[in-house]
């Protein structure tokens, strides 16, 4: 009978949330096991994407000296509203973004997460890879006291387990923290291609002055066939990340093939020139939990805390997620450290974690945008109606037809109400406002 393997804390999943928790706890002297099912931390992780340094700095104040493998700082960002043949661009470029370190960076997760996990190791956490957690272990009173892994004699014990397993939160569900699995209307499926291009090409095509500039664009409208969802185009060091995501329900209902939607987007006359000659170095897919504030699992129970995608900590409107995860992971880690000081791992004490999240941007933002997914779901025409209208109106506005400008303006107003009744527009705007204001 092997000796019972015991740690001060177990973290399930080496993503932004779990690694943040592990760093905080290891730094405080706790004996931490960070369990990752992939071959290395980051090998299962996939995103758009943009990372935000504010959350990283809170976890690792000296992160910059530790040379994180970012791609490019985001020095220009904004929205493209794409109709089938046109685009309206609303972009923001500013000298204020030109900082070392910058506020946000594009990144590729396989490299970034591996680096981030290495920081946990350098703080003293034990990183165990190639190990899948298959269940929690609970005592007679139902308190979580460890996890069962798929290794022989793979039970590991700790008075506290931090579950940061990602969007497919099987363990969270097994532990009874989430009552029901999610419906496909509350989850988005995103597919992405990482397309390799020489740095010089990336810089020329996106009008970047060098490696210290980068662009992050969120794209609405025709990219998703006008259906509820968004697309994105981010510049990397030597390549472009391009992807498209829709509420999973749209793929299911319309029997759409995600890779065809992406290929169609890549072929759009506005998009195609940016990708010309590039080579697809990697394709992948990931779910994005968009169930929001009202459907989150219990974040704390006896001996367990949940953080990151597993708890639905994503602000889809602002394409934020990793920063919410890092912040939640840090707060979970701090709560675990405090619990050790008091030797109290009860739900009653651990619920303090939720209160800290409530007073941070994490749950404040999720609360504010709690109706955003409902907005998308209840106004499925929104993207196509208004994005196409914007482009048609702009075409009319910028074209001179020898028509008095007053007639042109009347025309533009009329074009809107031909597409949607006055009350329809009023209802859509009210819904949008509700989605934004919470």
């Amino acid at each position: 009978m092997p000796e019972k393997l015991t740690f001060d804390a177990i973290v399930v999943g080496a993503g932004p949330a779990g690694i943040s928790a592990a760093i905080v706890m290891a730094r405080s002297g706790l004996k931490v096991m960070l369990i990752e099912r992939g071959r290395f931390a980051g090998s299962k992780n996939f995103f758009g994407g943009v990372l935000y340094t504010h959350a990283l700095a809170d976890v690792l104040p000296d992160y910059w000296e530790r040379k994180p493998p970012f791609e490019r700082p985001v020095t220009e960002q904004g929205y493209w509203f794409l109709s089938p043949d046109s685009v309206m661009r609303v972009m923001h470029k500013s000298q204020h973004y030109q900082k070392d370190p910058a506020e946000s960076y594009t990144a590729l997760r396989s490299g970034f997460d591996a680096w981030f996990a290495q920081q946990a190791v350098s703080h003293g956490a034990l990183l165990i890879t190639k190990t899948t957690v298959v269940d929690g272990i609970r005592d007679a009173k139902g308190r979580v006291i460890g996890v069962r892994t798929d290794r022989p004699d793979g039970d590991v014990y700790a008075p506290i387990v931090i579950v940061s397993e990602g969007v497919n939160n099987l363990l969270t569900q097994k532990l009874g923290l989430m009552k029901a699995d999610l419906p496909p209307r509350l989850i988005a499926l995103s597919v992405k291609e990482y397309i390799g291009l020489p740095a010089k090409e990336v810089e020329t095509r996106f009008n970047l002055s060098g490696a210290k500039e980068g662009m992050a664009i969120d794209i609405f409208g025709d990219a998703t066939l006008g259906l509820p969802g968004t697309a994105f185009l981010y510049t990397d060091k030597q390549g472009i990340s391009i992807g498209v995501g829709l509420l999973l329900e749209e793929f299911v209902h319309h029997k759409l093939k995600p890779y065809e939607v992406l290929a169609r987007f890549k072929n759009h006359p506005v998009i195609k020139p940016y990708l010309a000659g590039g080579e697809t170095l990697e394709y992948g897919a990931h779910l994005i939990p968009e169930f929001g504030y009202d459907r989150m699992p219990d974040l704390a129970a006896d001996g367990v805390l949940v953080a990151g995608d597993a708890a639905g900590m994503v602000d889809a409107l602002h394409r934020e997620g990793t920063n919410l995860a890092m912040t939640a992971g840090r707060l979970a880690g701090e709560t675990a450290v405090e619990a050790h000081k008091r030797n109290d791992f009860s739900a009653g004490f651990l619920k303090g974690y939720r209160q800290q999240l409530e007073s941070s941007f994490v749950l404040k933002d999720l609360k504010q945008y709690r109706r955003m997914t409902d907005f998308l779901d209840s106004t499925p025409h929104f993207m196509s109606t208004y994005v196409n209208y914007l482009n048609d109106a702009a075409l009319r506005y910028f074209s001179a037809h020898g028509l008095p400008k007053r007639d042109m303006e009347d025309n533009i107003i009329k074009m809107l109400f031909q597409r949607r009744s006055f009350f329809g527009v009023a209802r859509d705007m009210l819904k949008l406002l509700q989605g934004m204001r919470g």
Partner: protein
Amino acid sequence: MSERTHTPLSPEVQATLPNVNVDDLLASIKYYVDEDYAHLWIKDQAVCLKCADKPCLAFCPVAVYKVDRQGHTMVGYQACVECGSCRVGCPYHNIAWTLPRGGNGVAYKFG
């Protein structure tokens, strides 16, 4: 599913979707295939036989699901990127979805 009714996509929009050879995309993904354990399986083939729409054939981003001549659903778990779409998206929750054993499955090079 939500209560709302979906307006079907117009045939003109449908026609703008290009054909894609998904194998070309899969070739860009690195996998460590567990030959001894299929982490996905169909719970009950009879349910699939009664499913007229078979949306899994479309929405799986790596085309794991195919139908054989008898109408049985075949699961090519080797191509799975573990996104979870089928776990959530199968209208009958007829797909058993587990995690590959430690170290197996997709291993993104870039992510």
